[in-house]
């Protein structure tokens, strides 16, 4: 599965989204489930799924699905 598809699944599972919900363009606090609690759960789920550790700045700046994707790209292309 691509990173995009795996991240989409993490969003769907964590935020309890229906299969037809479009995650592209989704923004923090746009839907009730993506509140501050959902945000921390999302961070934990992303870290578990991709085996990464997000920085403080990344956590509080992650305001959309695309932000999460960019953050993840940075982590996954960085040399181990």
């Amino acid at each position, binding site marked *: 599965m691509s990173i995009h598809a795996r991240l989409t699944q993490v969003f769907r599972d*964590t935020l309890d989204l229906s299969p037809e919900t479009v995650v592209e363009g989704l923004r*923090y606090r746009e839907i009730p489930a993506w*509140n*501050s*609690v959902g945000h921390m*759960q999302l961070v934990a789920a992303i870290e578990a799924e991709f085996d990464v550790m997000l920085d*403080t*700045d990344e956590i*509080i700046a992650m*305001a959309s699905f695309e932000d999460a994707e960019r953050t993840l790209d940075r982590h996954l292309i960085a040399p181990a």
Partner: protein
Amino acid sequence: MIGAASGRTGCVWPPLEPHFWVPEAPALIDEQTCVTHVALRQAIAQAPLSSPAKALVWILAPNSIPAVIGYYAALTAGHAVCPLDPGLGSERLAALARRFEPEWVLTPAACQQPPVPDLVSAPSPIAGLAVWRRPDSLPVSGPIHPDLTLLLATSGSTGNPRFAALSAAAMAANTQAIIQVLGIGPQDRALAHLPLWYSYGLSVLHSHLAAGGSVVITDRSFLDDALWRLVRVSSVTALAGVPFHWDSLLRLDLARLAVPSLRLFTQAGGRLAPDRVCRAAEMCARQGGRFHVMYGQTEAGPRMTTLPAGEAATRPGAVGPALPGGRLEILTEAGLVAEPGQAGEVIYYGPNVMMGYAVDRAGLAAGDRLGGRLATGDLGRLEPDGTLILTGRKRLFAKLLGVRIDLADVEAAAEPVAPVVAGQEGERLVLVTTEGDPERQRQLRATVIAATGLHPGAVICRGVAAFPHLPNGKIDRRGLFP
């Protein structure tokens, strides 16, 4: 002014700095503006909200400067004020309005429709707020007790219409005790990010304004970088958080957030695990800050104890001695006053205890029924020096994100789908059910999420073959939630 308390021991209500030492100092700050103490008093004076009789005023708005001005204007007019979660939804609000008959409802100016049926638009004396009135053609069914100043929801969003009825004297006493015990002064500036319909959020506002300090008001999330920019640029000194906020702060790390102006940290609104209390205290100490663990209930306006800074790291599980003017007692199951070290129900005595509960308009007419004694339903023991150690709950409540949820309400909501025993594990509400079908379990979760307004990720469902029972035939909850 109706029902106002002042004078003795410096207690004031509404909670504004009484000596007017600092007229030009900031009182309310947001991302655009700063309102000084003198400007705040002027704004309150220009918004009389007068009516022939004492009225019930709902504040139905997210945290904002106009909402605070409206709240203070309603208190100053001597009304009974009830800040409510604007996210409750129109059905729940309409049901509450039928029960309590609010004469005034203040909403954001952007609100075009009456927030509950039958209200009519009235001229607004407060910029940024819309004012809605109950028409004279619909008289209310009863008067409001002269001592009543504040009505606060006791069970978050479960739709249970039980409110703590607090007197002006109780609120003034609690505000003063908080100022004293935390050492709040004109130099202090708190972040008002906790909602104003939550007793802890209100207490932060009250204590800082009454001490001549200021608050930075925001509706932003704790996990929004703009909130931390606001903390930085407005040099916030005080931060309050429920366990969720402290869990998040430990993950984010104060040092990395770069907010060196913060020096007074408080934690209340539920139990933070002892190892996390230690880590939080150490994290705050590293930037020269004080960390206080506190204990309270909305029924006490809300504060009952505060642990002195410095003890958090060395006394895990401790929440401190009673506030000045208050007293703690432990009652054993036999109803006897416990010896130090012996566990039982925590009983609090103090001037800040509510008058009683109100579940409808008739309840607003009632005077004090508790006489300053609150049976908390929490279990604990007292150390020889008077420090309270909490050990559990007598009543069946979950406390998620500082919001108390009556487990009986949850189980009743789930009942039509399948029998459930509800409990708390960490920051999650767990529904244990004998229903094995995944589709029915999904329905159970959806039903409880809808009934409680909890975050979907905070509700999980677990199947068991059968509920364990105690010898007396009752379900063994401890067997399910050790």
